[in-house]
């Protein structure tokens, strides 16, 4: 070891330790920076607006909520996971409203804060994703989420043959891995490819707008709106605003009045997982 002074050794050890520490600190194991930027050259900031005036829980169609159905079909979400779930909440006075609720994509995400291994993380585009190949299944994030938007693979979820050929990514969490947490991933991969998320595509009443805060535009598939004006003019709100989670999902209050629903007509068809029965020996569990 001639030529290596004590100082030299210490310096090298220091550099080595620093490098290890830096590697450990870097939480991003998913390269969102590689995503194409908006035409402005700036990064996308994905957002969603759900117009509750147009949501009747698919009562008029007579089916289970089609946003949920499309999501399940597109992601092979195992039963009983409803990554976008249509809650029926009581209204003031009487009757109910339907609230399709995806992951709120918080900008101050409680789930990301508590994850011990950085398996759930915020991307520069503002989405909150989960890396199921890193998740240890401690479920601290499920405790932390104030919107009940996280789902655990309690058992072995059935994997349809099609899912076997899917390229796993935190932006497209399929196939499901037992003992890990899943949730709505906001479909940024679809958006980059110029398509709307499954839920927005599936909505028969075009109640779900998806867009980019950076470009200030959003679309439900038939019309394009200027996001800031759309939100302001329609008194958009966020769920549990008081918690300070800063969600990226906004709601325009309503109870399906624009599609002719009376609030006293309650109930919706239960969600089904149609491909589940195609898989031999499929197990499911209660929510």
């Amino acid at each position, binding site marked *: 070891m001639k030529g290596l002074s004590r100082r030299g050794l210490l310096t090298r050890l220091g550099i080595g330790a620093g490098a290890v520490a830096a590697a450990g600190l870097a939480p991003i194991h998913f390269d969102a920076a590689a995503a194409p930027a908006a035409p402005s050259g700036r990064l996308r900031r994905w957002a969603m607006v759900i117009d509750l005036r147009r949501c009747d829980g698919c009562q008029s169609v007579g089916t289970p909520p089609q946003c949920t159905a499309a999501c399940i079909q597109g992601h092979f979400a195992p039963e009983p996971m409803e990554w976008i779930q249509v809650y029926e909440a009581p209204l003031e006075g009487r009757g109910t409203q339907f609230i399709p609720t995806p992951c709120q994509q918080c900008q101050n995400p409680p789930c990301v804060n508590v994850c*011990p291994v950085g398996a759930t993380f915020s991307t520069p585009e503002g989405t909150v994703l989960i890396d199921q190949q890193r998740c240890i299944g401690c479920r601290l994030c499920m405790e932390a989420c104030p919107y009940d938007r996280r789902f655990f693979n309690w058992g072995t979820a059935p994997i349809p043959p099609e899912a076997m050929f899917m390229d796993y990514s935190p932006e497209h969490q399929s196939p499901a891995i037992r003992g890990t947490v899943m949730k709505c991933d906001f479909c940024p991969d679809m958006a980059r490819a110029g398509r709307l998320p499954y839920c927005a595509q599936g909505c028969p009443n075009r109640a779900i707008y998806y867009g980019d805060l950076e470009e200030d535009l959003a679309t439900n598939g038939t019309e394009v709106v200027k996001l800031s004006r759309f939100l302001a003019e329609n008194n958009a709100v966020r769920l549990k605003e008081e918690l300070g989670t800063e969600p990226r999902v906004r709601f325009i209050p309503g109870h399906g009045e624009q599609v002719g629903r009376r609030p006293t007509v309650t109930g919706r068809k239960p969600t089904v997982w149609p491909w589940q029965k195609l898989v031999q020996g499929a197990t499911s569990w209660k929510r």
Partner: protein
Amino acid sequence: MEAVTGAGGHAIPATRPHAADGVHAAPGVTPAWRARLEERGLAPLARTGRRYWLWIGFLLAVIAWALHAYQAQLENGLIVTGLRDRISWGVYIASFVFFIGISHAGTLLSAILRVTRARWQMSVTRMAEFITVVALMVGALFPFIDMGRVDRILNLVQYGRWQSPLLWDIFAITTYLVGSTLYLYLPLIPDFALARDRLGPTAPAWRRATYRLAALGWRGTPAQRRLLDRAMTVMMCVIIPVAVSVHTVVSWIFSMTLRVAFNTTVFGPYFVAGAIFSGVAAIILLMAVLRKLLHLEEYITRKQFLFLGYLLGAFTLIMTYFNLTEYVTHGYKMEAGVPFHFTQLMVGPFEPLFLFYWICGIAIPGLIMLFPRTRTIAGIVTAAGLVAVAMWVERFLIVVAGFRVPLMAYEPSDYTPTWVEWSILAGAFALFALLISVFAKLFPVISIWEVVEHRGPELDEPASAVAAPDRRALRPERAGRA
């Protein structure tokens, strides 16, 4: 009387010299008394009866059954438990909090009471320290049992984020385990030396070799004594803040979240108080069992039970205070979710457990300690038993009821633990008992040298016939001081 009572009231040992020679015996310690103490203290190390092996066999059978249950969980996933998305923590995490809680027995008894120079607890410090180390070992298993992907445990090392409360727990519990193991070991050194010198050639070779090694060449020289005293002083000062931090961060895995029932700043101190409460109960129970089995009635008298019972009684009030603080600050404001939470606790599905906690965990133990007539050893042990069970129930209520408050417009879920969870819980208790049993076979359950040095025969308890002459011998000294 073989001893000559010296000028300072110290008994000068007349027996053959041994390793604990550096020990300055307390006033009233006669060589006969000391010899009997050493005999009693070392007896379990020298002889093992058939009942012991039956007991160990029984515990191993329970643990094997728990392993079978755990294997079912590994094979099928956590689906075999009663846990689901909405109540995603249950028996495992409640037991985690419970076991980490009773680990506070050791710190409280040995560190806090040593710092305050109390002497009555000297004969039970060792047991308290056993509980600490063993409860930590068992409790720390639960988060891993609860994990969906325990095979990825090394991710905690590779990708660990210090921002996560789970990492705080890991750091705090690891520190506490290392610290309390050291703190268990330090006062054991002179006793290891005693075992080394006293066990004699009939003891198996491995035992003698172990004690020789563990005694670290202890001869009781003044230099060694100074070193040991200094090390123990440092450790007892270090271990107290560590213990407080441990249960504070355990509470933070709850109160760092946005759930209504956990949304309180009182959780840290409240959990620490609950930990000490259940820890005191645990030490009373273990004390009662070992006293009976190892015939330690002379060293563990009503006094130890009484003083620990007073602590238990005081903590029923402290727990009441913390609970009331929580209920009143939540209940006065009645934020969204609080009415649901209070209803489910007080008149809903958790009512029986809630009442059990209040009646059997707080009221009855408090009343037992209030009346002199019920403050007997049997009464105090009963109170401790009730408190231990009630504190597990309380942990269960915190976790399960807290999770049950709906976050969105859905029907509240229910949670019924399955056989897998109960089996693993039984296995954990069996493991706890097994480790204590093994410890009691390997180490003297009484800190012999400290009892000789600090306590001596019970001076104020006329129960022991041996103590009587010593009391007389001591009187002039007391009069002189006054």
